[in-house]
């Protein structure tokens, strides 16, 4: 392979023909030269970079020590990618870095900004080094720019990916929290519904409730919809079906906190409400549930409050 490439290089040098292979070989050669240069001036360039980051007021969430540590490792990673051309390690590092800095409120523009700054700082140093030989400078930049752009790209994409992952995670958490099924006493579940009930949420609520009934072996479920401002027909119907399904699983459902508006909706649709056990507020619902389960709650002073 080596023979072949050198032969080719030789031939293209002879003919003066700028074959792509020639450019690649030349590029690789230049890149290694470049990497050596960047390694040599590592401290100086890194400090220059850090200074420019500070000048542009990026990463203000970080302490100077952290900044020094991060800039060093970003710099080393950067040079390594220039050398090997493999972005995997950098991708990994960028994801790792994002994981650390996203919770501290570092914005996308900051991350992209610092990577672009590093690119500029390094390009400047190359200008300086090769300013005598314009042709050589051009070739060095030819080799450097695509690699540098790819790095900037990788870092930005990794950062955004990480961000999206965090958002997805939070969405899942919110979804989970939006319909909590809470065991209050043995065999008694409470299901507070807060916020607008759309049909997606209603379906999820049913699933959670039915599996909750089985998991906790519930006899009585109190669904409190005080916090639900309104329901549409579909959801109201769904609610009634949920009550029926719970009954099929051997649990009786008490609905509390029906607002006048929801009550109106339920009556208007004309669903069979005779089997629905509804009670004005959550307190009354709990008392009824306790009665169904045979609990009596007694105050210690002797006055009963059940």
């Amino acid at each position: 392979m080596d023979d072949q490439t050198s032969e080719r290089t030789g031939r293209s040098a002879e003919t003066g023909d700028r074959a792509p292979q020639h450019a690649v070989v030349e590029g690789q050669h230049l890149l290694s030269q470049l990497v050596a240069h960047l390694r040599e001036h590592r401290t100086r360039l890194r400090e220059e970079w850090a200074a420019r980051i500070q000048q542009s007021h990026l990463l203000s969430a970080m302490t100077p020590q952290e900044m020094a540590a991060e800039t060093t490792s970003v710099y080393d990673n950067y040079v390594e990618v220039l050398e090997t051309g493999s972005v995997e390690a950098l991708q990994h590092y960028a994801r790792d870095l994002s994981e650390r800095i996203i919770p501290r409120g570092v914005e996308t523009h900051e991350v992209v900004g610092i990577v672009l700054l590093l690119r500029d700082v390094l390009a400047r140093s190359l200008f300086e080094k090769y300013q005598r030989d314009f042709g050589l400078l051009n070739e060095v930049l030819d080799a450097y720019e695509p690699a540098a752009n790819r790095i900037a790209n990788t870092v930005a994409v990794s950062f955004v990916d990480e961000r999206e992952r965090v958002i997805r995670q939070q969405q899942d958490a919110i979804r989970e929290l939006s319909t909590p099924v809470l065991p209050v006493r043995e065999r008694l579940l409470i299901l507070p519904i807060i916020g607008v009930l759309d049909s997606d949420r209603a379906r999820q609520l049913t699933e959670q409730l039915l599996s909750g009934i089985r998991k906790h072996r519930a006899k009585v479920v109190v669904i409190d919809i005080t916090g639900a401002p309104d329901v549409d027909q579909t959801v109201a119907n769904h609610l009634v079906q949920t009550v029926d399904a719970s009954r099929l699983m051997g649990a009786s459902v008490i609905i509390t906190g029906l607002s006048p508006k929801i009550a109106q909706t339920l009556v208007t649709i004309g669903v069979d409400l005779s089997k629905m056990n509804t009670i004005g507020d959550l307190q009354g619902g709990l008392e009824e549930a306790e009665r169904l389960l045979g609990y009596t709650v007694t105050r210690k002073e002797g006055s009963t409050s059940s």
Partner: protein
Amino acid sequence: MRQGSTLIASVHTALDDTELVRFEHDLIAQIGEHRSPGVIIDVAALDVIDSFAALTLRRIAEMARLRGALTVIVGIQPEVAFTMVQLGMGTGDVPTALDLDEGLIVLADQGRGREAPSASSSWGTTP
């Protein structure tokens, strides 16, 4: 299949329509034989209950009532429960319970199950 005076029928596999009819006959006959005041039908193994099955269960309960026994259906799976409701086929007035233990308690509450049954160990497999 029998626990004390309570008749326990557990359905182990999906039954087709003819099997359901035979199941119905057998069960009703046995209520008379054993003079059972309570019947529990366990459908925990079913992941589909179609309208005919639901109808049959209701019919069994009604016939059992006429022969003096109270029927409880137990072990309806969450997905099955919701599907049944969505398709508009409930169990009518037939009481339901979460599982066998609960079903026995329901019967006991209704005064049909005798004393609380001991450890639920050996009943037959086929309905």
